[in-house]
């Protein structure tokens, strides 16, 4: 299979830098910086205090050491905690006021912010470094009672909702990175789907890191009231840089009775070069709470980027009969490291969860699945099914599986299956005998391996994800 090793290495094509004037804080973190971020956003005092409490908690915490990843200590004073494209003082009202360079950036990334292109049936919130620069289809959604806007805007327009739900799923002191995010988060998306409304379009956020030496700390909050339904997508890219950049986001989902939230991610942060230089540290806390009966939260993620990924989109299944799902494809190539998985915490009766994790390791990448399934005492008849498969390409990569299964109810049923395999020479030869090149054969086999996850993604995303996978594995050894 030598020819596999010779496959050309395609480049990270999202790695360009946009030249915009920006308003960036000096590097460093202190209470004053936290206050300054809050002031910049003209936040109410309760939120400033909330941030400060998080900051003080963070100071007493230590970065987790249990993940199966290695990186030099991060200098938290070496990061700028706020960076926004310089803009008129007032918040932008329409796209006309957004810097054309930024609009061009999004066009180049394949994300149209033009209202006319609503045909795609996707509303987009575009986050550029620390701030949301544009949100499309807002008016249309507002007529349906759906709030879809930047987090900063929500703080002013929907203060009571923000106050009620912010930190209700991921408390400020939850973990080191969540605490840091709570102190310094700059922007993100806010979605609120009122009772009985089925959101007619996909809501999406596109995150772009542009500035150097900044961290991105976005905060997303999605609330689906009784009977509401929403499908939300996020995508992310960053320029190629030799230094590592920190991205520490927090996402909170709340589903009330009979509500459904589907959250899909295609994470394509800059992964660093083939020797492991540069790339994003993607340290993210994502958690959903199925608070109501019959509610359902589905996480689908395709993780191809980042130098290091550390994230566990989780579900707390509180409402009786609620459902949590996690579908994941994580690819590591070259020197990438991923420690990712999920937590399914069964609290309510008849709660069900499904975990399908597909890990692909190539090059010198290390891929870890870490998942917790916990059945609390009262979670009668809880069910979990976990399937966790690893595919290894090359003999210098690693695949690791660390499931934690904790059961305290005798009527629960938890099943976990894991397997590890490689692309066999026989498979490649079979494809070649049918006239298919090695490169296409590998692509086909890998996509086949991930199929159960891809079919959970909205159509456009699934196509994008398949392409990404091909690019991510280019140059991997066979």
């Amino acid at each position: 299979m030598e020819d596999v090793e010779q496959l050309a290495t395609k480049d990270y094509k999202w790695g360009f830098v946009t030249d915009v004037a920006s308003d960036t804080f000096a590097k460093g973190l202190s209470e004053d910086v936290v206050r300054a971020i809050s002031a910049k956003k003209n936040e109410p005092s309760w939120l400033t205090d909330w941030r400060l409490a998080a900051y003080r908690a963070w100071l007493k915490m230590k970065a987790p050491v249990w993940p199966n990843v290695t990186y030099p200590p991060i200098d938290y004073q070496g990061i700028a905690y706020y960076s926004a494209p310089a803009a008129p003082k007032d918040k932008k009202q329409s796209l006309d006021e957004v810097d054309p360079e930024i609009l061009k950036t999004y066009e180049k990334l394949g994300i149209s912010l033009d209202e006319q292109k609503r045909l795609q049936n996707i509303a987009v919130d575009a986050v550029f470094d620390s701030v949301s620069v544009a949100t499309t289809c807002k008016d249309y959604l507002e007529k349906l009672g759906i709030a879809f806007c930047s987090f900063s805007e929500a703080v002013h327009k929907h203060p009571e909702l923000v106050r009620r739900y912010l930190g209700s799923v991921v408390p400020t002191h939850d973990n080191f990175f969540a605490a840091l995010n709570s102190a310094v988060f700059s922007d993100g998306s806010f979605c609120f789907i009122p009772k009985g409304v089925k959101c007619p379009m996909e809501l999406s956020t596109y995150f772009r890191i542009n500035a150097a030496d900044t961290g991105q700390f976005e905060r997303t909050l999605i609330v689906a009231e009784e009977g509401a339904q929403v499908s939300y997508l996020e995508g992310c890219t960053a320029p190629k840089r030799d230094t590592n950049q920190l991205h520490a986001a927090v996402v909170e989902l709340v589903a009330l009775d009979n509500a459904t939230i589907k959250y899909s991610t295609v994470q394509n942060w800059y992964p660093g070069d083939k020797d492991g230089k540069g790339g994003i540290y993607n340290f993210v806390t994502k958690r959903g709470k199925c608070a109501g009966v019959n509610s359902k939260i589905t996480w689908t993620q395709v993780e191809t980027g980042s130098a290091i990924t550390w994230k566990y989109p989780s579900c707390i299944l509180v409402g009786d009969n609620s459902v949590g799902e996690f579908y994941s494809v994580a690819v590591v190539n070259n020197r990438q490291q991923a420690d990712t998985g999920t937590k399914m915490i069964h609290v309510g009766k008849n709660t069900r969860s499904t975990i399908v994790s597909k890990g692909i390791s190539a090059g010198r990448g290390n891929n870890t699945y870490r998942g917790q399934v916990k059945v609390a005492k009262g979670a009668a008849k809880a069910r979990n099914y976990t399937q966790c498969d690893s595919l290894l390409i090359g003999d210098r990569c690693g695949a690791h599986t660390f499931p934690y299964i904790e059961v305290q109810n005798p009527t629960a049923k938890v099943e976990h299956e894991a397997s590890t395999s490689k692309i066999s020479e026989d498979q490649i030869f079979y494809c070649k005998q049918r006239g298919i090149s090695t490169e296409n054969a590998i692509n086909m086999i890998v996509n086949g391996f991930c199929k159960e996850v891809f079919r959970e993604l909205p159509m456009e995303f699934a196509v994008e994800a398949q392409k990404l996978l091909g690019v991510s594995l280019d140059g991997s050894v066979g």
Partner: protein
Amino acid sequence: MSGAVAEMPMVKGCWPAHLDAFEKSPGWSAVPWAVGLRKRGSAAFHERGFPTTDDEDWRYTSVQALAATAFRQSLAARADALVSSTAKMFGFGLEGGPRIVLVDGFFSPELSDLTALPKGVRAGGLLRAMTAEKARVETHLGEIAPPSFSAFAALNAALFQDGAFLDVPAGVKVETPILILHLSHESYLASHPRNLYRVGAGASVQVLEAYASPSCDLYFTNAVTEVDVERGGRLIHGRIESESGNAFHVACTQGRVAEDGLWQSDVAALGAGFFRHDLGARLVGERAEARMFGLTIASGKQHVDHHTAIDHAVPHCPSREYYKAILNGRSRVVFNGKVYVREDAQKTDAKQTNRSLLLSEDARVDTKPQLEIFADDVKCTHGATVGQLDEDMIHYCRTRGMSPAVARGILTYAFARDVLQNFGIPAVKEHLDRSLVQRLLDAGRGA
């Protein structure tokens, strides 16, 4: 997986005093070459103290109660009439065969019977072997299970006074299984038996290492067993933990297997109130094989924690692991099984299965099967399930005229037999089957 890091004070309990007293007694330097090992053990324990639940390897098992208990130490062996009669109570199906008996951690020549062993086989107490068979012991002792392995292994290295020694020379096939019986019968006593088994090239032997007590006393057994299987050797290694319900039993069993060798470990966890077993196999030669079978039956407030590790260090090695647990009452069972496939260990074929049956409201299972794989051409799978008896099966039994309780009992028994049938010493398997059937029928029935 998350949460703030709590700073816990390091707990050492009564052990600094034990270490101190032993260091001043003649036992410490009775075998001069072992003093280095003892010192390393003592230093390692002083340095780390007991683990806390923040320690990933101990996240489901708290040693607080164990650490807080003031145990007594015994600086000399004794064998009295009472012991001699009780030793006969425990045969585990191997009655009348060769036996090595230890009482509270000390080898008892009077209670042991080694007359039937083939020529060349060396068996008996470890302490004696450390002098008489120095060359065979020194190279292995503390090397396969080093003091650095855990706080308990460290304590054992420092404080062990005796244990069982078995050496089967190359080519010798021992037909009759050997019983190695560790008896505990002193209340609040801590013992640290240390066993060493060597199986020479092409040799084969079956060993049952059993821990038992005639009492329901509180005491502490802290055992370490080191196993070395040389090229083409075969060791069928049964281990029955049938201690007093109030006892603490911590064990560290580590072995290495050379090419074409086989080590099969059959563990039955039946007794102690607190049981922790670290079982590890290193496959260091091609086609070396490890098999690990485990059956746990827990009830009351028992806490049973199995930590297993299979390290595939070289290519072409198979391993099989099958652990099952049946839980009743307020018992808690932990299974942590690691399969490690190192770089270059191509063509590894590893399969691990863990199944738990929860029979009561208050029982709890924590399972953590782990695969760590650094080679690509491997076949590794693991599966874990936690659940209850299959309702369809119960229904099927009922259509054949059984009451639900009887059906449950039978299915529980079947659940256990499924793993028991893999046990490698036929007489022990039959003994366990016979002696457990009633307990299992009752457990399933909810009695």
